[in-house]
């Protein structure tokens, strides 16, 4: 296999941040691609500093490299300056470790975490020297595959992808490697037979094996074209994270990246049931990593990388069972190690005093800012979205924060939620004003930033039937808030560009007809759409119009209850009637408590898979799941079932 390094090297002095392209990270694989093995290139279709920290990609990268039959390299979208030089010199997309050209791999595997990277995905395929459309690929071309949260509606990318993996990839990546290895050694094997075989792997979706028909704005039918191809592809769930202590060798980059610290995943899944949150719905059930394994991963990770900061990642880390003991243990280990002070952080905080107490336990120095996500401005609205944070919980939390030395509080909110009224929107300004006022009692310099994002109703959430607010409506709500917060002392308003929210809606709610739109936006130069300086709504408007597609139909239209949704042939394990009932409950303003500590609602995520919530301790976090009316008491054990061989110790 070849290397583009001799041709690339002279170009690097001419580009910004050339360290993006040299590999050499601590933890990078030394195993070169080998024609006798199955060679993967995992690609994050955005800039290196955004893509490198992605944990999903790093997990699969390690798992493949540990296999005797596979190798894995990585690649990222080259920045525009290098891309121009590469195209001028005829240098294809390359892997950063071995600088192997993209087209020499067996599989190019994309991580899909954000819809606005879709045009970069197409660009990467093209740069790799592979036809962008799956239908144009022939025997010698790599398979183009994808995984990640966006794959729950992969239809807008159906034209470009050979196969899509739904759900946890730890097991599937090995199964695909075995299948491709067998295929490589088989005389007369064809690409068509390989695709058919791939479709036989549980949770692998091969878009070209399905016919889609349309009825005006909506889909009429989605039908498998072969008898062996499943009518519905369901996601894969690994039952126990304890079996997958990855990444063992988290990459420590040579140049600064986002989230530049050790990351240890403490659990996957979330059972709070926030109705706007796709991640929470599609990753059920909760699977906690045993506390002793978390501690080992933290200690060994810090020692190996030299980082002095670790984030305990999950969708809601303060909900980890008996989180206080875990945090205490990590701080003890750090002190026992005698090394430099380690700082531990959580990606998000619970909106209550307990969340602040955890933060205080972790951040003994450097108390600058804390972030909370009440998500909506009124209790009514929070009942609709099932984010059952009471106003007093928030005030208690920020009072605790300001009184303990934090000066800046950031609050996250969504606008454009179902049934939202102007009173709900303006409630955001009212909350921010009250929070800033609480701050002033403790510190003259106290401030509060309200950060507002437009809501995109995502597939496999109870809000999937809801039509997204128009750009004009979102902008009107932003303006309401701008007017309301003008002159408020200590309050700053920030907002996400509603035009970008619109394009996220096109890419996450559309069907296969959006593929041609994405391709045209790419052909007209619309890459790096995640970056505000490159984002161009006009390219999308023009492309939708050129293909006779209505943005209104795709994004803003409420979907009919009997409508075939573009993702009808895929399943995140959630029963459709559960989602529909939850949607009706939302409209009736009925909240739903955290199912980890209450009886099952039969959403389907556990029962359909024969798995259950795996918790590390029977001790729920103090106060249970906040605001859900659950009175669990501080430190009281509840009768949950602890699964698997771990953990042995039940506190009590």
């Amino acid at each position, binding site marked *: 296999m070849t290397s583009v390094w001799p041709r690339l090297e002279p170009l690097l*002095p001419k580009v910004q941040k050339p360290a993006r392209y040299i590999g050499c990270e601590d933890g990078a694989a030394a195993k070169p691609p080998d024609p006798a093995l199955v060679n993967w290139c995992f690609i994050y279709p955005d800039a290196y500093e955004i893509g490198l920290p992605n944990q999903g990609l790093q997990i699969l990268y390690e798992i493949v490299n540990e296999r005797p039959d596979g190798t894995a390299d990585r690649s990222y979208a080259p920045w525009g300056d290098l891309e121009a030089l590469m195209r001028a010199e005829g240098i294809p997309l390359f892997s950063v470790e071995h600088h192997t050209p993209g087209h020499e791999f067996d599989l190019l595997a994309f991580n899909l975490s954000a819809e606005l990277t879709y045009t970069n995905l197409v660009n990467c395929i093209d740069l790799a020297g592979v036809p962008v459309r799956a239908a144009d690929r022939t025997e010698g071309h790599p398979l183009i595959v994808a995984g990640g949260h966006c794959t729950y509606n992969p239809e807008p990318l159906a034209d470009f992808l050979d196969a899509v993996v739904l759900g946890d990839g730890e097991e599937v990546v090995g199964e695909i490697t075995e299948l491709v290895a067998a295929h490589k050694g088989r005389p007369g094997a064809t690409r068509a037979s390989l695709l058919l075989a791939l479709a036989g792997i549980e949770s692998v979706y091969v878009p070209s094996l399905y016919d889609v028909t349309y009825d005006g704005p909506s889909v009429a039918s989605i039908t498998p074209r072969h008898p062996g191809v499943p009518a519905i592809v369901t996601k894969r769930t690994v039952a126990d994270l304890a079996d997958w202590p990855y990444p063992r060798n988290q990459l420590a980059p*040579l140049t600064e990246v986002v989230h530049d610290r050790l990351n240890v995943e403490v659990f996957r899944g979330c059972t709070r049931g926030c109705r706007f949150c796709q991640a929470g719905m599609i990753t059920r059930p909760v699977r906690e990593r045993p506390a002793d394994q978390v501690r080992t991963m933290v200690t060994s990770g810090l020692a190996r990388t*030299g980082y002095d900061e670790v984030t305990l990642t999950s969708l809601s880390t303060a909900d980890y069972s008996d989180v206080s003991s875990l945090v205490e243990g990590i701080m003890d280990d750090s002190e026992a190690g005698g090394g430099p002070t380690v700082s531990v952080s959580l990606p998000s905080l619970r909106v209550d005093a307990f969340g602040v107490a955890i933060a205080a336990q972790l951040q003994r120095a450097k108390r600058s800012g804390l972030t909370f996500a009440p998500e909506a401005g009124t209790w009514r609205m929070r009942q609709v979205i099932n984010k059952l944070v009471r106003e007093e919980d928030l005030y208690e939390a920020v009072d605790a924060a300001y009184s303990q030395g934090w000066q800046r509080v950031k609050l996250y909110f969504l606008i454009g939620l179902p049934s939202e009224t102007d009173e709900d929107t303006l409630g955001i300004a009212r909350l921010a004003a009250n929070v800033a006022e609480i701050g002033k009692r403790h510190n003259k310099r106290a401030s509060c930033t309200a950060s507002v994002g437009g809501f995109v109703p995502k597939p496999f959430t109870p809000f999937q039937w809801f039509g997204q607010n128009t750009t004009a409506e979102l902008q009107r709500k932003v303006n309401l808030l701008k007017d309301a917060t003008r002159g408020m002392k200590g309050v700053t308003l920030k907002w996400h560009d509603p035009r970008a929210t619109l394009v996220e809606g096109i890419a996450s709610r559309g069907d296969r007809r959006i593929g041609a739109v994405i391709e045209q936006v790419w052909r007209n130069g619309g890459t790096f759409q995640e970056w505000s300086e490159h984002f161009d709504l006009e390219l999308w408007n023009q492309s939708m119009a050129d293909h006779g597609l209505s943005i209104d139909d795709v994004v803003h239209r409420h979907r009919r209850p009997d409508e075939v949704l573009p993702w009808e042939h895929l399943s995140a394990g959630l029963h459709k009637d559960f989602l529909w009932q939850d949607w009706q409950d939302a409209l009736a303003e009925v909240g739903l408590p955290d199912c980890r500590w209450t009886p099952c609602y039969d959403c389907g995520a556990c029962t359909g898979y024969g798995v259950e919530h795996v918790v590390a301790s029977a001790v729920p976090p103090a106060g249970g799941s906040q605001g859900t009316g659950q009175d669990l008491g501080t430190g009281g054990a509840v009768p949950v079932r602890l699964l698997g061989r771990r953990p042995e110790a039940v506190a009590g």
Partner: protein
Amino acid sequence: MTAAAQGRQIVRIRYAKAGRIRFVGHRDVARLFERAMRKLRLPVAFTEGFSPRPKLSFGLALPVACESDAEYLDVELATPADLESLPADLTAALPDGFTVEAAIAIAPGQPSLQQAITSCDWSIEILGAADAGIRAAIDQVLTAPELPMERIRKGKPTVTDVRPAILHVECAGPTSDGVELVASLATETVSLRPAELVQLLGSVLGERTLSEGRIRRLKQWMIVDGARCEPVSPPGSSTRPALVRAS
């Protein structure tokens, strides 16, 4: 209290940077050294205050994409460390391409590396250039009474006579892709970067612009008691370091 009075130790480290990692910038190199020192549990001293920082102090920034035989940093340790094994340990803890060659204790109160360095020697490859042409250009540069060069300083174009910054330059002979120069360029009062020297030679030659290939810093020089010396002598060299050992 001085560092010595507190039982602290200031260590001056000499390292080389070569290969792919020459594309890693100065600030990132600092972060890599911090991480490597944490891996080794080196007792690095921290600054006081709200946001303590490790006490690392680097010499003059090496431009991205340049290699170097002679980079330096000073690190203050809260308790003395074994300097015998430090070079090999640090080299192992750093990414491939960094070689830590020597570590010596220096007396507290020395001028910082940034202040002390007065000039650097460079090997500069000029791509696609002919030996004779470059030699002629060098002669012109060296005999010119002044060399006004327009540069952007604080956002404004200013014209500086850079002739005093060129202490020495000669053609070392052809390479596979061009010609190698060896130059000694000042870093204080009037300074000149290697790429600027190449630009200057191109403008002397007239019609065409020259492009630089590989650039390597060979030496950094400081003046101690009127004599030119290196902050830390390369390993195996017979010349004693000019600085007084702290212990």
